[in-house]
């Protein structure tokens, strides 16, 4: 179902802790939005208030323009799936899927049609007559999702539903869930600390920290134009390098220097001269086995092997920087020569930790 969700100035406090601090957010009908943040950021508290398990201290929650605060949880027409798949282990998969539909009084023929369609979409057809207890973890979670989606709730709330699954199952379920959500035009609020899940499925992501939203935007905006240091560091795997840099005015443009790279021209920007942060994604460094133009030699301290790519941890001034290289590249290598693509770095103000926009540089790179 395609319902709009609106959160207005939502607040919740537990004793001394302000869990959610004036959170405002709207989801368009059919939108998939993820609340992404570390544990303790307030994302699950927000979800619990929408579901009706917690009463907010302030603010309003409305679906399609009507406040739902006075409605009991079971009357909110909200579907919920948690990390621990809640399915009836003694019932067959078919009976699990039928359960919510029977409660809604959906006629038998329509029930049959929907069960067949959902089972097919989530690859559960061959399991329909199995009991819940006989399923493996990823099948259980697919059933848990299907039995909620099939009731076509106005809003679907998902709280870390894939945490217990293996990597390969997670990758499969991400695609299946997203395609199903799109086809049903189902409004989804998805809570996770896993940025891969948020990036891969969301229309928009709201990054949260300490009860506040740091940034709301499409996955691409969040990745390419992080609002601040926290977002830059939270999004991206392996994590972005945040390196001290010295900013100088050079005519109308600025130049920055780091421990390893000097005089990087960044175009016009509003920032005071002095010490700030340069944030560089590990994929943006270019590593070479021999020196090149603008490269700096640096010692390889250790290598993380991820199979399809390796991450070098190299000396960068008094700290380590991560550099992504293809497998086999660093075999037996003590020193690499790293270059920097000035077009793909972020400048972060040391005082307020906000990312600073800079115009295109006039100088040839």
């Amino acid at each position, binding site marked *: 179902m395609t319902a709009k969700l609106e959160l207005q100035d939502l607040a919740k406090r537990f004793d001394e802790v302000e869990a959610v601090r004036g959170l405002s957010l709207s989801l368009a009908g059919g939108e998939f939005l993820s609340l992404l943040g*570390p*544990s*303790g950021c307030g994302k699950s508290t927000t979800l619990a208030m929408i579901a009706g398990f917690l009463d907010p201290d302030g603010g309003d929650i409305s679906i399609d323009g009507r406040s739902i605060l006075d409605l009991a949880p079971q009357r909110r027409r909200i579907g919920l799936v948690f990390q621990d798949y809640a399915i009836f282990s003694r019932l067959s998969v078919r009976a699990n899927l039928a359960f919510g539909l029977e409660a809604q009084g959906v006629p038998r023929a329509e029930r049959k049609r929907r069960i067949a369609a959902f089972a097919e979409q989530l690859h559960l057809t061959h399991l329909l007559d199995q009991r819940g207890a006989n399923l493996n*973890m990823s099948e259980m979670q697919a059933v848990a999702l299907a039995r909620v989606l099939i009731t076509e709730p106005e809003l679907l709330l998902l709280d870390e539903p894939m945490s*217990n699954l*293996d*990597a*390969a199952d997670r*990758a499969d379920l*991400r*695609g299946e869930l*997203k*395609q199903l959500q799109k086809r049903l035009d189902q409004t989804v609020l998805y809570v996770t*600390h*896993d*940025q*891969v899940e948020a*990036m*891969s499925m969301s229309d928009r992501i709201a990054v949260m920290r300490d009860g506040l939203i740091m940034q709301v935007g499409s*996955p*691409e905006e969040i*990745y390419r134009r992080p609002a601040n240091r926290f977002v830059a*560091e*939270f*999004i*991206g*795997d*392996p*994590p972005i390098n945040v390196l001290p840099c010295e900013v100088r005015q050079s005519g109308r443009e600025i130049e920055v220097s780091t421990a390893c790279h000097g005089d990087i021209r960044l175009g016009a920007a509003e920032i005071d001269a002095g010490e700030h942060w340069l944030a560089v*994604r*590990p*994929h943006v460094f270019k590593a070479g086995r021999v020196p090149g133009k603008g490269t700096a030699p640096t010692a390889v301290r*250790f290598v*993380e*092997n*991820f*199979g*399809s790519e390796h*991450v070098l*941890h190299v000396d960068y001034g008094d700290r380590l920087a991560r550099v*992504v290289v293809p*497998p086999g590249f660093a075999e037996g290598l003590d020193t690499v020569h790293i270059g920097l693509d000035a077009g793909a770095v972020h400048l972060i103000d040391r005082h307020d930790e906000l990312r600073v926009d800079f115009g295109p540089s006039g100088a040839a790179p």
Partner: protein
Amino acid sequence: MTVLGLRGLSKRFDDVVALDDVTCDIDDGEFFCVVGPTNAGKSTLLKTIAGIHRADAGQIVIRGRDVTALQPKDRKVSLLFQNIALFPTLSGFENIAFSLRTAGLPETEVAARVQEVAALLKVDHLLERLPKTFSGGEQQRVAIGRAIARTSDLLMLDEPLTNLDARIRIELRIEFKKLQRELGQSVLYVTHDQVEAMSLSDRVAVLHEGRFQQIGTPDEIYHRPANRFVARFIGTPPMNLMEADLESQDDQPTLVASGFRVAVPTIKSLSSYASLPKRLAVGVRPEEFRVGAAQSTETPLAGEVFWIERLGSKSVLDARLGEATIKAVVAPDHAVSQEGPAWFGFDPEPRYLMDLQSEEFFQ
């Protein structure tokens, strides 16, 4: 020198075989990782080594000494569980010092050792505080500190990072590796997370249904998987396995499917291609596809992209290639940025070939 030797270790609970003929040698100072899905037998393995479970068959040898019949306390191994269990009424210092005190070390040595461990784990600021004031990551650091404070022959860790946030996990993973290197501590690490296993280990053992499917360096496990399970479990997205028929064309053995045709990879163990079954699976890692917006000699195969997962630093394309459904990884600014027709090739040429009956790869 071998620190831990397992010989044909087996354990069953009623009808369930938890460990089935598990055999391996862990070298001194090695970081050895056992990776597998839930219920693979990982925790049973650790508990059996620690002596919490008694093995039904097989032998456990620690530094040349058969400990199979010994009590847990006499085995000189330490075990850290997934769930953080700090003593709530003891300070960070006392938590780390716990095993040193029970070992009866003099106070000056205890203090020196705690300081050393705390500095390594960056928990100096937590020594005077109580656990309830620690964040999740801090609790786990202190718990790790407690486990490593007293050096043991073998440190065993059961999913120590699993309950932590993704970000803290990445951070701790790296520090863990550094720490292990600096201390030269032999580690047996159990996880369901193949990223942890790949990035931390000197060697990895893939455990499934109580059996070691393969033991090898991360490179061996990734580039020379033994069977279907290992190929699909290690690497994200997992390896694509596409069925094809073996045909001989111009005396050149070729694999033919509706979406592609490729030369049969060179197989060392094979004397003649004639002995191969007529239907096989070709394995292609997602990053081994070449993808183009137009047909070219490098991308000759017509496919259909039906779903794109944009992950920031890369994008994953879900596509149909003939009868096969595949996942291919491309750069985020790739020319194919929309669902629809696309063209595919291989780079390098496919080098994995799997028997569909045994589900084992030809090496």
